């Protein structure tokens, strides 16, 4: 558009560097480009999860791309220098735009444009012309302004040597809409930047602070990673408080490390509670806290309740309920050996967060008690994803077993048996990789509601002597076979059990592959498995006998099912990776509440921006700026009157208004001489035409010129 509006009669601006820069920054093309660029680059942070622990990214992208993305700041895009620079650029561009537009808009709002030539008016889309013989100029002017008044316009009359102009306008506050909206963008943008990580980045860049990346207790964190109260004006930090403890700091997580932000008061967590709906979904999270602040509260601490959606604001610090976890629940545990000939369990105690040393078959292992949960609301096993059926699986303990080399297996054991397909099991999930799917071990429950029978059964398989006795007792007496054959068969049975205990059914079939020619493999494997099953059944019967189960009537249905389930569990044991099964027997829950503490300085500024934005947008969209001109001159003993008008937007509505005004004047003055043909311009051109008066007007040079 700008080509058409180089003002006539004025020298073209000298293209100094500053002017070019201003022109560039304030240009509409740049503005639109920036809007789109910000939109597109914002997408990155929504598809790539932000601020995850760095090892997760390494696993995901591999070392090379990890480094590339790291350099680009993609793990914290919205804090990355280049992203902030784009935002700053948008703010700058909008400011320049306002700087260049505001005077024009204000002038349009405040000043009546009386310097206008009759010919320009005749070029307007809305224009009528009267020749009124025998009329008094003053009387005509009175009629015209009377009509302006009737239509709600304000006007100003200017006398020139040979003519008069009455310039009128309506809806002038529409011009404020632009100022409000765009000022809002600048205000919100600056406020947002101030509340962001800008200060931290600055301090980091100047070397005043450094991220801590080690896993340290709060008191061990060195001063370089600590921020005193007020060191930065805005922050957002977290702290996990066990019930009964207090803290006067929060952690600020940043990239691959964290900082400790000290608070000018201490928060004590007295109690944390989760309430549940009958269906098991959480209903509320509530922290009862106490604020200790000698300087401001003296010896009487402030009691408060914090809930999701109901933060506590204290001295400009807002404290939110944001997370919860375990605060060191006390557990009683029973470890059942899985790889030895004796199944007698070991009782032990521990606290969540602590580490127990246990002796394993190949050296000491660390038992890290990670997490305790009272409720586990999980999808009903076997349900379709859409079924939305959930079941509470009861309390669970999550722990890790770490060997001397630092390799860890992770476990999740449920305390109470779970019913699956009509039978009951103790369930233990295991995984060798963090983030991998848990593999579940299902230990069938015995008649005493305990895993004991299964574990005794399992122990038998590791007891070679005991196995021999059982085998001898139960040897199938095959007619006409030599004792040697019998001995060989027993050895085969022992070997099979051994293989099975070491590697499950897979080990047995592998063994068959190794020793049997291919053409007889299938047959032989079948035979092996049959023998194995018979043997295990003998052992199982012996376990039952030892328990005192009466077997005269044969094995009951329940025992039979138990045997099958036990076989499945035994087959899964070699991959389970733990030398014992850890049973949770009692617990005393201690909860912890995750609190988020934030401090912000620019909230008021940003909210003011919000208000401006809403006000501005509504003014811009839903009011319209309209102008009318009446040009009057004496002519041949009468008066020539030109009436013209233009609207900035809503041109269809304005056309209607203009016509009504014209009708009103016809009533007052009589028919006009010439009417520029009244057409309802198609909306396509309506606004472009409506803009003309603003563009053609020679009074100011920059009108609409900046966005080209």
């Amino acid at each position, binding site marked *: 558009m700008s080509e058409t509006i180089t003002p006539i009669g004025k020298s073209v601006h000298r293209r100094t560097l500053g002017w070019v820069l201003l022109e560039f920054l304030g240009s509409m093309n740049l503005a639109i480009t920036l809007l789109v660029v910000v939109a597109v680059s914002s997408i990155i942070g929504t598809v790539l999860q*932000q601020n995850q622990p760095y090892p997760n990214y390494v696993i995901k992208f591999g070392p090379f791309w990890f480094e590339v993305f790291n350099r680009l700041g993609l793990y914290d895009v919205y804090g990355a220098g280049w992203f902030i620079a784009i935002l700053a650029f948008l703010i700058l561009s909008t400011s320049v735009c306002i700087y260049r537009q505001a005077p024009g808009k204000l002038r349009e709002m405040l000043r009546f444009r009386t310097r206008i030539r009759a010919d320009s008016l005749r070029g307007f889309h809305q224009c009528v012309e009267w020749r009124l013989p025998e009329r008094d100029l003053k009387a005509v002017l009175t009629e015209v302004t009377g009509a302006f008044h009737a239509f709600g316009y304000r006007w100003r009359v200017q006398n020139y040597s040979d003519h008069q102009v009455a310039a009128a306008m309506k809806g002038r506050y529409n011009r404020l809409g632009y100022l409000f909206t765009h000022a809002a963008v600048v205000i919100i943008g600056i406020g*947002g930047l101030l509340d962001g990580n800008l200060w931290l980045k600055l301090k980091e860049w100047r070397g005043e602070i450094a991220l801590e990346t080690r896993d340290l207790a709060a008191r061990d964190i060195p001063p370089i990673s600590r921020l005193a109260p007020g060191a930065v004006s805005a922050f957002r930090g977290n702290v996990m408080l066990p019930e009964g403890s207090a803290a006067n700091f929060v952690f600020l997580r940043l990239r691959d490390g964290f900082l400790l932000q000290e608070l000018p008061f201490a928060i004590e967590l007295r109690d944390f509670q989760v309430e549940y709906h009958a269906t098991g979904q959480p209903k509320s999270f509530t922290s009862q806290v106490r604020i200790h602040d000698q300087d401001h509260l003296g010896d009487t601490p402030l009691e408060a309740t914090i809930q999701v959606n109901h933060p506590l604001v204290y001295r400009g610090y807002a404290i939110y309920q944001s997370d919860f976890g375990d605060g060191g629940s006390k557990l009683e545990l029973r470890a059942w050996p899985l790889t030895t000939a004796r199944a007698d369990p070991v009782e032990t105690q521990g606290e969540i967060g602590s580490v127990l040393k246990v002796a394993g078959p190949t050296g000491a292992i660390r038992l890290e008690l990670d997490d305790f949960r009272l409720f586990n609301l999980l999808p009903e096993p076997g349900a379709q994803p859409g079924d939305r059926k959930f079941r509470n699986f009861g309390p669970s303990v999550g722990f890790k077993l770490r060997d001397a080399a630092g390799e860890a297996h992770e476990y999740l054991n449920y305390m109470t048996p779970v019913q699956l397909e009509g039978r009951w099991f103790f369930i233990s999930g295991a995984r060798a990789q963090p983030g991998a799917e848990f593999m579940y071990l299902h230990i069938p429950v015995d008649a005493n509601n305990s895993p004991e029978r299964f574990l005794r059964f399992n122990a038998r398989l590791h007891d070679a002597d005991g196995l021999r006795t059982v085998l001898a007792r139960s040897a199938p007496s095959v007619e006409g076979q030599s004792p040697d054959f019998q001995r060989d068969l027993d050895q085969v049975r022992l070997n099979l059990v051994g293989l099975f205990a070491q590697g499950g059914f897979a080990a047995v079939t592998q063994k068959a592959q190794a020793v049997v020619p291919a053409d007889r493999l299938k047959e032989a494997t079948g035979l092996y498995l049959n023998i194995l099953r018979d043997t295990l059944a003998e052992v199982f019967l012996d376990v039952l006998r030892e328990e005192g189960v009466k077997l005269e009537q044969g094995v009951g249905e329940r025992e039979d099912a138990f045997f099958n389930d036990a076989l499945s569990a035994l087959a899964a044991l070699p991959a389970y990776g733990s030398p014992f099964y850890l049973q949770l027997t009692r617990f005393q829950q201690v909860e912890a509440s995750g609190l988020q503490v934030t401090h912000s300085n620019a909230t008021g500024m940003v909210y003011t921006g919000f208000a401006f934005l*809403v006000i501005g947008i509504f003014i811009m969209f839903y009011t319209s700026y309209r102008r009318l001109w009446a040009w009057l001159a004496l002519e041949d003993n009468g008066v020539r009157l030109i009436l013209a008008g233009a609207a900035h937007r809503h041109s269809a509505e304005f056309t209607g208004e203009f016509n*009504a005004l014209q009708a009103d004047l016809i009533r007052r003055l009589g028919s006009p001489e010439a009417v520029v043909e*009244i*057409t309802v311009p198609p909306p396509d051109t309506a606004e472009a035409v409506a803009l003309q008066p603003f563009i053609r007007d020679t009074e100011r040079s920059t009108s609409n010129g900046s966005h080209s």
Partner: protein
Amino acid sequence: MAVTREAMLERPWEHSSPWLRLAFWDGLWALLIAVGSGYAYWLYQPYMDGYEVAIQIGSTLALITWGLYWKPARRFVLTVALLTVVALWRYGADYELRKSAFLLKYLLESQAAFMWMSTLYVLATATYFVALFSRSEFIGKTATALTWSATVMGLTGLLVRWRESYLLGTDIGHIPVSNLYEVFILFALITALLYLFYEDRHRTRAMGGFALLAISGAVAFLLWYTFDRQAHHIQPLIPALQSYWMKIHVPANFIGYGAFALAAMLGVAYLLRSGAEAHRPQGLLARTLPPLDLLDDVMYKAIALGFAAFTIATILGALWAAEAWGGYWSWDPKETWALIVWLNYAAWLHLRLTKGWRGTPMAWWAVIGLFVTLFAFLGVNMFLSGLHSYGTL
């Protein structure tokens, strides 16, 4: 498009101030709504806190203004109110009646109402297209009536569902805008109302089929979501959503989404028509599809309205976030996508208003804008994780 001067001059000029023309019926309308709202307050006051009372007062004023500004809204609101009252009366305090009481089971129980709504919207879509090609005034009127009825059933269903959630348990009760299932219904309703408004103001039904196509799409999703995913069960609110902010933030958002969807469908009509005009100027499409300048105009109006509503919604979201998550802006995926949608339409408006872009490129942009919007409203929940644990598929 030339109109004779005489015709223009004879056209009565309506004064722009709405306050001058308030008449008896307007007063009655305002009174009726105020009394109805007062009664609802008296009934449900125990469930409301101060903010919610303020929201109720605000909604009452908004409802009155709506009816003053746009007369057809009155009949609509009163019909919905009547049906809802009947349903609540029939329910009493027994949620199980939904399975046995005839009136509830086949008409007013929320699930039944939604089925009616779905059916009627799909019928209306087809009817609008038939009306467009047959140029039958009668069929057109039928299409409008179907759309109104569908919208009545949908809003009634939502209101009844609101009550049903309380019948399930007072600690479960909440306004039905809390998950993807419920907001899809809201989306259909708002889009329909926006369309009906423009239909009335521009005195043309030509755009109906296109507008309703978006709604039928939402209905298709809703049916799949109901029957395949069983998403229609009323669920208790997670703690993060237990806030009065939800009552204003979500509806404001959906005015935006609805308006953008409408604009996009008009964009589709625009592209079809301009394509048809270019290739077969005398063809059926070029002659029957809605005229380009109308589409362009309504498209702009819808986007302007959507932009205003979406601005408010995003600001409300920021205020809510400041109260629930500890900051007005967290660059959470849902927030970020709201910003993306907003910037996108800001760019659209600038191009149109300051650079004077019109026609095909803007229509394309409006259509693409819908995909951006759709991602913000569906895709984020489906594919991205964040603080808005608002509903997954």
